[in-house]
């Protein structure tokens, strides 16, 4: 009721009075309607007052309407509420008095006004149902189901009977279901689970894509059942899986198993699956639904872990070293078979849980007790320090002790020392062997000293012998030479020619003997002389040797060809003697040649530099080559070529002292070439080349 803006106080008081009267009247009317005492009401509208009568508003129906759980109302075709029950008022959160006479649209969300108007129109012809939303007075929205029926109204044609069912609980349940389904889906997908369901009566299945993907298919298989599933199970696991399934079906229990499968793409995998029985009480359906998971990686990891453990176990079991674990208090936490064997225990249970210090390290070999707290071995279980010792003694079960070498390493959990691992060996035998070796060494040393003394003695004897040869053998020679000479000179004229000839032979014999003694002494001296090595230019050495031989070739035609020669690490004095002897030989055996050609040079023989002296002399037959380097060995008659047979033996001795070898190539009447090396051949074999040449021929 609009109030005029410029109303007087009197006008306002009159209006209030009128309204209060109408309220009283309306309350009385409602009371009358509810109690069935009124059959019609007058509604004031824009088109003036209209009277509605409630033809069927008989008392039992009113009571039903009042008691029912749904909201109920009778409305005009325009939506004016003629009657409503308490429940609708509660649903709208308004007093019932406010509802009756007002438009139903006023308790609807604005957006629903239009569709509700249509609904009213449709309801005049037939029964209709629809969902909608009530707007409660507190601003909340209430989902409802409307059911509208046309009813005849006395005197005023038709009205509509409207029943509103509260859907909020149903909607909440639906929402909760949707939420839990989404959660389940998320859980299944993020756990990479496949899900499946089987109708135990029809054996029909439904699966997720993830399920079939685990079996190696990229899309859902058109057909899938228990038998097809079994065909994918590894043959060795098939029987077990089938039995477990049948058991769970017959006993009505859940089904859970792990098995190997061979996928449609040939991949071998491990799966875990679980199925729960579900009896649908409403339909009587017997179903099993469940999950499947690819556990190949877990199984492989388990397998690796198992192998690792096995390896470690094998190592611990097979090692000859005793291995013990102790905690921070030195109490045994594990021990391997070697530890038991060395300490002479039968079973690990005898050691586990025992203080190992008390068991095996309680006292020294002298029986003096050792304090555990100050024991460095067991300190490693508390300090982060390793220890190695070979001077400790441990005690066996039978009360005997033995020497050990032991290692202690702290065991760390993060930064914290939680115990230590003690590894040890019985070194009694090793100590005994070491002692024996020490004795043997002492003995050996003594024997070496003895032997050295013997060698020194025999060396001295040899020296004395050489000295004696040098001094005493030469004296009589000199005398023979001297007296025969005096005889020849002072009495030669009176001697017959033949006697003179004999005297001459005596002279020559003594000279020859003198040379022999000199050469032998030289050879003997070589044997006991140490090499004095230095880098020397061989070319210079050769040139010096040639110069010193000048008296031997002064009156001959000799062509010298000295090629490039390197510097070598050698004893220059001795190497000069080698060249002197070889060059002297070359001169000697080229004497029959009008023009002697003597060549000195180097060649590469199997990676080693070999030096050679070549001549165009009389040569020799190679079948005697192996005799060439022996003392007193000669291939020529003395009257043809003089010589003591010691020269080449001396050369060989010098070359061998340098670690080298010497050999010769020659042909009778076509010269000879002597080769020698001053260092061992990298491929070996050259050292005995002289012999090798001999064998080849």
């Amino acid at each position, binding site marked *: 009721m609009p109030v005029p803006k410029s109303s007087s106080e009197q006008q306002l008081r009159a209006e209030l009075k009128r309204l209060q009267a109408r309220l009283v009247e309306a309350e009385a009317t409602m009371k009358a309607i509810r109690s069935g005492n009124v059959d019609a009401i007058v509604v004031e509208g824009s088109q003036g007052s209209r009277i509605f009568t409630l033809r069927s508003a008989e008392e039992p129906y009113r009571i039903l309407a009042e008691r029912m759980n749904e909201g109920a109302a009778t409305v005009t075709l325009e939506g004016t509420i003629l009657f409503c029950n308490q429940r609708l008022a509660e649903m709208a959160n308004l007093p019932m008095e406010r509802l009756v006479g007002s438009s139903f649209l006023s308790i609807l969300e604005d957006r629903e006004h239009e569709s509700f108007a249509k609904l009213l129109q449709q309801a005049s012809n037939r029964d209709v149902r629809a969902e909608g939303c009530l707007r409660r007075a507190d601003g909340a929205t209430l989902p409802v189901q409307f059911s509208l029926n046309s009813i005849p109204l006395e005197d005023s044609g038709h009205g509509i009977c409207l029943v509103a069912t509260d859907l909020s609980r149903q909607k909440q349940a639906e929402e909760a279901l949707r939420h839990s389904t989404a959660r389940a889906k998320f859980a299944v997908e993020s756990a990479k689970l496949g899900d499946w369901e089987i109708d135990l009566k029809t054996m029909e299945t439904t699966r997720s894509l993830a399920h079939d993907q685990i079996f190696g298919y990229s899309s859902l298989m058109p057909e899938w059942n228990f038998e097809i599933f079994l065909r994918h199970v590894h043959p060795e696991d098939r029987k077990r899986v089938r039995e477990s399934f049948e058991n769970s079906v017959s006993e009505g229990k859940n089904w859970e198993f792990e098995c190997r499968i061979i996928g449609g793409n040939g991949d071998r995998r491990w799966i875990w699956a679980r199925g729960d029985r579900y009896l649908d009480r409403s339909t009587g359906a017997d179903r099993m639904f469940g999950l499947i998971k690819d556990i190949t990686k877990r199984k492989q990891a388990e397998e690796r872990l198992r192998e690792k453990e096995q390896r470690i176990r094998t190592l611990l079991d097979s090692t000859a070293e005793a291995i013990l674990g102790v905690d921070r208090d030195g109490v045994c936490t594990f021990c391997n078979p070697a530890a038991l064997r060395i300490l002479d225990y039968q079973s690990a249970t005898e050691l586990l849980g025992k203080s190992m210090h008390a068991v095996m390290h309680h006292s020294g070999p002298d029986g003096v007790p050792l304090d555990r707290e100050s024991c460095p071995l067991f300190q490693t279980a508390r300090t982060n320090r390793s220890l190695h010792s070979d001077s400790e003694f441990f005690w066996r079960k039978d009360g005997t002790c033995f020497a050990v070498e032991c290692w202690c390493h702290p065991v760390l959990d993060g930064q914290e020392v939680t115990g230590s691992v003690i590894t040890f060996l019985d070194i009694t035998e090793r100590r005994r062997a070491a002692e024996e070796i020490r004795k043997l060494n002492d003995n050996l040393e003594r024997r070496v000293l003895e032997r050295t003394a013997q060698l020194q003695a025999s060396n001295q004897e040899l020296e004395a012998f050489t*000295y004696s040869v040098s001094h005493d053998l030469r*004296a009589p020679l*000199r005398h023979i030479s001297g*007296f025969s000479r*005096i005889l020849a000179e002072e009495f030669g004229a009176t001697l017959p020619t033949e006697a003179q000839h004999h005297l001459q032979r005596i002279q020559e014999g003594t000279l020859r003997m003198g040379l022999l003694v000199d050469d032998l002494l030289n050879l003997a001296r070589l044997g006991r002389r140490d090499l004095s090595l230095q880098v020397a230019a061989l070319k210079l050495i050769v040139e010096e040797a040639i110069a010193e031989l000048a008296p031997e070739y002064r009156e001959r035609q000799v062509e010298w060809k000295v090629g490039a020669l390197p510097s070598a690490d050698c004893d220059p004095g001795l190497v000069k003697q080698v060249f002197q002897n070889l060059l002297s030989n070359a001169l000697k055996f080229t004497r029959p040649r009008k023009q002697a050609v003597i060549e000195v040079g180097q060649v590469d023989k199997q990676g080693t530099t070999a030096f050679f002296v070549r001549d165009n002399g009389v040569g020799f037959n190679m079948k005697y080559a192996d005799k060439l380097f022996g003392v007193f060995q000669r291939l020529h008659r003395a009257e043809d070529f003089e010589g003591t047979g010691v020269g080449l033996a001396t050369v060989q001795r010098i070359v061998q002292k340098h670690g080298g070898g010497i050999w010769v190539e020659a042909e009778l009447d076509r010269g000879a070439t002597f080769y020698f090396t001053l260092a061992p051949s990298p491929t070996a074999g050259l050292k005995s080349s002289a012999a090798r040449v001999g064998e080849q021929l």
Partner: protein
Amino acid sequence: MTAGRVDILLVEDNPDDVELTLHTLRKEHLLNTIHVARDGEEALEFLFCNGVHSDRTFEHPPKLILLDLKLPKVDGLDVLKRLKADARTKTIPVVILTSSKEERDLANGYNLGANSYIQKPVDFDQFRRTVKSVGLYWLLINQPPVTGG
């Protein structure tokens, strides 16, 4: 025994060597006055004027000593050592004349103050030449220091 002047003291035990040496010296006209000592002991007695040579004085030392090394009783090198250690005898030229060609002997000889070391050649011609040149050099060419004796 030989109290007078002696030019050469030959210390040699081997009679053949003595004879050959004397023969050579005689042939080369170097056999002035020579005394032969047949062992090291006698050589020392001769040089130090004692023992069998106690009648000798240090006034006239020999001009040259020809010394063999391998000698009975007292070894040649010992003789050398003793006479070179004594001021009265150390200026007398000593020529070691020996069969030994041992480097050890050679080195010892020179170390002990020998003036020359000569190996007796087996060849008598060489021997003769050597004895001759040694005698000529030390007796005729060399100018000895004035001895304090």
